[in-house]
Structures are given as C-alpha cells and as structure tokens.
C-alpha cells in the first residue's frame, strides 16, 4: 500500500509549518487583525453583562481567556452565525460531505470493491477534499456558442437555491435560520426554482445533450412537484400549521408516519425523483445523453452543481424528518450539564477556574440536534441505497408513475388525513 501512497512524515510537516510561521504571523498582524477590527467596528455589537461589546473589548479575550465564551455566546446569537455555521450552510455542507463519503464507501462494499482508499490516512476520508481541489484547479471551458452570463450564473444560482432550502429547515427547538410562518410554502417555492435553473443552464449551453437532459429534468421535476405537494397536505391538515418548527413540535407524541404511511412513501419516491437519484437519474443518463444537463459544465462549475445537489439531498432528507419522523423529538439521552461546574467552577488541583458563559448549549438543543442528525442520516442512507440495486427507468415510465399512481396515492393519503380529522382521533396540534 505504501508504494502508491506518498510517505507522510510528521517531522517534515512541522518543519514546513515552522518555515511558514514568520510569514503567517506577519500577514496576520498586518492584515488580519486590522481587518477584524474594521469588521467589528461596523457591525452592531451585542451587550454582554450590561456593557456594550466594543471592538476593543471583543479582542480582550487575548488578554483574558475567560471572556471567550461570552463573546462566542454573543456571536452565536447573531444571524450571520445561523446562516453560515450552525443550522445553515456549514452544518449542511458538513453533513453533505459525510453523505458523499458514506455513499462511496457503502456502494463500494455493496459492489465488492474497496472504494476511496489512499487519500487521507483512514479509508480515503480526504478523497472529497482531493476531488474538490482537483475541480478548483481545472480550467473552466465555456462552449463558444453558449449564452455566457446565464451559463455562468446557473451553477451559482443552483447552490443559492439549495442553500435557501437548507435555511428553512429547523434543526432543534429555536434553531432555524428563517422561522417563517409559511415555511412549507417557502419550501415549495424554493423547490420550484430548481427546474428553472436546470433548464436555464441546459438551454444556455447551446448544445444538444444538455438540452435533452434539461428538458427531461424539467418534465421530471414539474410532474413530480404535484404529488410532492399533495403528499404533504395530509401533514398540514393534521398539524394546522405551515410553520415547519410547529409541525416538528406537534409530533412530540407520535411522528406523522404512524398515521400517514402512504404520504410518507409518496413523498419519499417524489424526493428521489426531485433529487435525480437512481432509479430516477434520467436527466444525467450517461449511456444515452452523456451527462445530461451537466455535460458542458467543467471545473468548479460542475463542482458547485454537485455541492448544490448534495445540499439539496440533505435538505430533502431533513424535510422528510421534520414532516414525518418527528424532527428533533426523541428520548432525552444527553446528560444535563453538571451543575457544580456552574456553581463551584472546575477544580484543577490548586487552581479553581470559574468560567463564565457556561453551558454553551442547552441540553434540549444538544438532544434535539442529536436526534435530528441521527434520523436525517438514516433517511439519507435509504436515499443512497437504491443506487446499488436498481437500474434507471425510462421517461415514459417515470411520467406514468408520477401522473397516475403517485397522485392517486397522494389523494388516498389526503382522505386518510381527513378521516382522522373528522373522526376526532387527531386534530390540529397533534393527538387529542
């Protein structure tokens, strides 16, 4: 194995770091710290312990480490943290990266292969990073007859739409980027953007195979949006709300999949079609139309579309969890934060450290996130599994499935929901 993989030596790595440390410190002190000061000067600072956090105070953690946690607390309360890090983009991208790794390894095990092996010391865990670096370093080739502004914009728009979708997903009680009352309607609106972006990208490439792929994607997404929306109406009826946080909270006793299994199945199938995953990967059917609407995309443009695809995958799985599997609800498994640390501080031999700002996260939030992630990973696993089992289906079979069978089943699901509602078993807000 070590013949192919280059030898990694820690001492050489540290040496190279030390070689660069002078320049790192110089650049940080000349550019980094002033830049941080500028940013802190212009954004609105929060109030901590009754005093306004000024840029100067924000940097005092360098002298007083005990100030770190209050500042982190203050930062966590800002919108930018929610959008960029926790319930938003960073968290979703991390799960998406994990999804890609699991997909590769799982598919490899299914097909009696090894999968990524060399990149990174453990089981090719850095393969995705290597692929990303490769895509960034590749030249972007634009077809000569392409409609360039739209062609450039489409991958960016795709990621933006996927990120907007992620922003609507509640991860834990109170932890959601955009807590809107019409959240589910917002989800439908965002889903409606994807076919438009796809057909714009395909058409602007001015090439035959992307065009056919784009038309296929348009057919597929538009015809599966109807059963998608219809299959979720049952949940909306039983909950009496379109707010995703309220829908998740209403399932504290039973997840809706217990009462609406048909709706869950229909939603799962439409989800596979919306995500263009096997067996519904017609827009990218390689033996017919090369790579479908992605044929002319090269370099990081392709990488962006892949990023958007996996963000979308996470968002759909998370939506399934929120609507049918009870979102963050689950037995309390996270132990409470030890109270003596809050009152007495941490005793380290002779020194007793009193750390203000603890605990960083509440017990409910950690527990909710844990259950949410576990359920989402489970759903993602079932989304990935058909790839190793099924061949691709044909467009006429797909449209037949969407327009006749799934819509019929979605109506059956609505009638079940109405029956439960009128029989008085279940009503808005959960179990009566």
């Amino acid at each position, binding site marked *: 194995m070590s013949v192919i993989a280059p030898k990694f030596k820690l001492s050489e790595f540290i040496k190279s770091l030390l070689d660069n440390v002078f320049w790192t410190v110089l650049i940080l002190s000349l550019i980094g710290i002033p830049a941080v000061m500028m940013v802190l000067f212009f954004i609105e600072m929060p109030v901590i312990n009754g005093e306004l956090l000024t840029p100067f105070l924000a940097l005092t953690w360098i002298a007083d480490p005990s100030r770190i946690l209050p500042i982190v607390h203050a930062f966590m309360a800002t919108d930018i943290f929610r959008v960029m890090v926790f319930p938003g983009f960073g968290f979703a991208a991390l799960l998406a990266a994990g999804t890609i790794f699991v997909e590769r390894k799982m598919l490899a095990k299914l097909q009696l292969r090894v999968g990524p092996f060399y990149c990174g010391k453990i089981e090719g865990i850095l393969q995705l990073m290597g692929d990303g670096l490769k895509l960034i370093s590749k030249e972007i080739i634009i077809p000569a007859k392409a409609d360039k502004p739209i062609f450039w914009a489409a991958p960016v728009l795709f990621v933006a739409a996927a990120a907007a979708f992620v922003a609507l997903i509640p991860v834990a009680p109170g932890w959601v980027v955009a807590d809107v009352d019409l959240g589910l309607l917002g989800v439908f609106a965002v889903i409606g953007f994807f076919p438009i972006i796809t057909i714009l990208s395909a058409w602007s490439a001015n090439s035959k195979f992307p065009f056919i792929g784009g038309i296929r994607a348009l057919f597929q997404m538009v015809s599966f949006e109807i059963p998608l929306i219809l299959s979720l109406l049952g949940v909306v009826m039983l909950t009496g709300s379109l707010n995703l946080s309220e829908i998740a909270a209403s399932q504290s006793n039973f997840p809706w999949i217990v009462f609406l299994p048909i709706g869950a199945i229909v939603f799962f199938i439409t989800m596979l079609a919306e995500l263009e995953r096997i067996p519904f990967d017609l827009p990218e059917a390689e033996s017919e139309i090369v790579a479908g609407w992605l044929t002319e995309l090269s370099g990081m443009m392709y990488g962006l579309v892949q990023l958007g695809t996996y963000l979308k995958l996470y968002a759909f799985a998370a939506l399934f969890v929120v609507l049918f599997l009870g979102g963050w609800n689950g037995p309390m498994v996270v132990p409470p934060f030890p109270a003596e640390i809050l009152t007495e501080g941490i005793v380290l031999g002779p020194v007793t450290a009193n750390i203000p700002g603890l605990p960083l996260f509440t017990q409910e939030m950690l527990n909710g996130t844990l259950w949410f992630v576990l359920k989402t990973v489970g759903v993602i696993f079932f989304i990935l599994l058909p790839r190793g089992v099924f061949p691709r*289906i044909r467009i006429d079979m797909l449209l037949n499935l969407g327009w006749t069978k799934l819509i019929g089943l979605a109506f059956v699901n609505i009638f079940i929901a109405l029956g439960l509602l009128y029989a008085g078993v279940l009503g808005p807000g959960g179990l009566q």
Partner: protein
Amino acid sequence: MTEQLPPGLALQKVDERIMTLNVGPQHPGSGHMRIIVQIDGDYIVACDPDPGYVHRGEEKMAEYRNYITNIPHLERPVIHDSCNVLYPYVLGVEELVGIEVPERAKYVRVIASELNRCIYTMYWLAIYGIFLGHSTMFMWPAGDRELLIDLMEKMSGARVTHAHFVPGGVRNDLPPNFEDVCLRQVNYFEKRIKEYSAVFYDNPILIARTKDTGILSREDAIRLGTTGSVLRASGVDYDLRKKEPYDVYEELDVHTNVMKEGDSYARSKIPWLDMLESCNIIRQALQKMPKSGSVRTKLKPNPKGKGLNSVYKRVESGRGSLGCYIVSDGKTEPYRLKLSVGSFRNLIALPYLLKGEKLGNMPSVYWSLNYWPVEADR
C-alpha cells in the same frame, strides 16, 4: 449531379422537429463506433450505425505472415474471446496443412473456448449493466470474471490474449492439478452467476424497461442474417456447437437455450443462460478428457498449404457464428484470409430495431445485440 457524401456529412432537408444526435465515437454509450440517431422528441425516427473507427486491417496483415505468426494478431479483434476467435483459423489451417489433433488437445480446446465464452459474456454483461444505469451489475461481473481469467492464466500463461490455440493442438499442456482447480472455480462461478438473476434479471425495473422493446421477429432475424444469441432469442434453435459440431462437441451433451420473445430482455438473458450451459460443458469435458497424452502435434517449421486450396471453418463464438475463410496458394502465407464475424452481422439489425423506439431504449437495444465494435471492424 449531386455528389454522394458519407452519412452524417450529407446535408439533409429534415423537419425542424427532428434533431440529429451523433452518439459516439466519444460517448459513454457507444463503444468504438458512432450511431447517428435522428429523434423527434423522445422517439427515434432513423438510426444509422457507423462502424469502422477501429479498423486494423487484420485480414490484410494475415497475408504477410506465415500460418504460425498469424496467431497472436488474429486474436486481437476480441481479446476477451481470443480462443474462440482463433478457433476457426486453427481448424482451417489444420485442414490446409493436413495434420491430426490429439484427442486430449481437442478437450483442452473445448474447455478453453467455453471459459473464454464466459469471460467475454461477463464483460458484455458488465457493460449491459452500466448501460442500463445499474452500477452493481457493472462491478459484479467484472469481479467474478477474474475467477475464469485466473484459470486461463494457469492454462496458457497469459491473462487476456492467450494465443493458446495452435494448428495441431494447444500450445502447452495443462498444469498439474488443473482439473480440480477448474472444477472448483467453475462450480463457484456458476453459483455466483445464478445470484445475478435476483439483482438483475428478476429486477422489476429492468423487466419493465427491456420487455417488449426492440422486438426482432423470427422471420426478420433469419432474413437479416443475425447469429448467436440474437437469433436464439428470436426463437430459432441454431447453435453451431450442435448443428455443425467441431472437435469433440458431438460427444458432449450441449443444450441450446432458445427464447421466443425476441425482445431486449430475451437477448440479454440468452448469453447468461449460455454461461450456465458453458459450465455444464466444462464439467462434462473435464470428466471425459483423457488424463494423459500429447496435446500438440508438432508442425514442420514454416508449414505450407497444400497447393491452390481454400477452406471455410466456423465455430460458435460468444457473439454467434464466427467463420474463417482461408485461401492458400501453396506458400507459407495464406493467399487470402477473411473473417466473418457475428458482431457485424448482428449490427445490421440495429436500424430496424431502433426505428420508432424511445431514446431511452437505445443503449439497451444496442448492447443487447451482442455487438463488439472492434470485432466488427477487424
């Protein structure tokens, strides 16, 4: 006067609805050839296969090499099926030169050619799987193929291009203990390919996609001159191993698999059934083979054909009838050598089958014809 341009270059007046797609030669779904497809929406109105991208002039090259040095390059058209490609040539040269083949060598040839048929069919099946978007069916046959490749390596010394058949027998005797190893590997291989039916041939989506698509009727199959699995999938009981037995096939119990449907599904299932049959043949041959004896009648250096003479021999290869026509004028080289291959004869059916089909059926219909582009071009 209009000049006749090759297809694809000619300017045609077509309906604005009709789009011409060049599938290949650089396309994941074409192989080393081009299929010019005209589509109206999702329906194929016309299809024009355009082979010839890997023409290597094997037949012309054979005229400049003697009967022995022709062996390594004549197997190149289908390197996965190299024993079967060499088989008719070797049979023909034996008749031209006039030598007898030892009994044991005939059995070794049958075993090698059946192993090669399986190796080829596994490769074909792997590509059929990936053409339908079934990546597991790409990896499994490609992996299980190694079992038989290892056997061929033990037998001939080379993994793919064996050059094992020579006029007068086979190049080397079997290694010691080969019979036991071969029986064990073949039994395991048979058990393994029986599992494919669960994941592939009984898969409801596969059946829905390939049943009743690209139907080739019995009459059309005969009229178009198709051979091999394509012919047998259309209900014609025709197998050269049974109809014109060569070497020791008449002493073995060969069962021919025939299906009546003539659709893509039947065409894709017949090679799989043939592989199971090959396992039976190998087991029979291992049982009946003389346990010792010569495997090669030595030829004189630079053998010459007898006078002005011609011979035509054909065998059942993985893709159907494979014939070799050799004309000798008494020299050490053949005067003319012609390979008549199954791939090219099956390809003729493609425009008939694809007309009116959906674009999504193109890969499954195309590859179910058991077509190997390199062999067709020779």
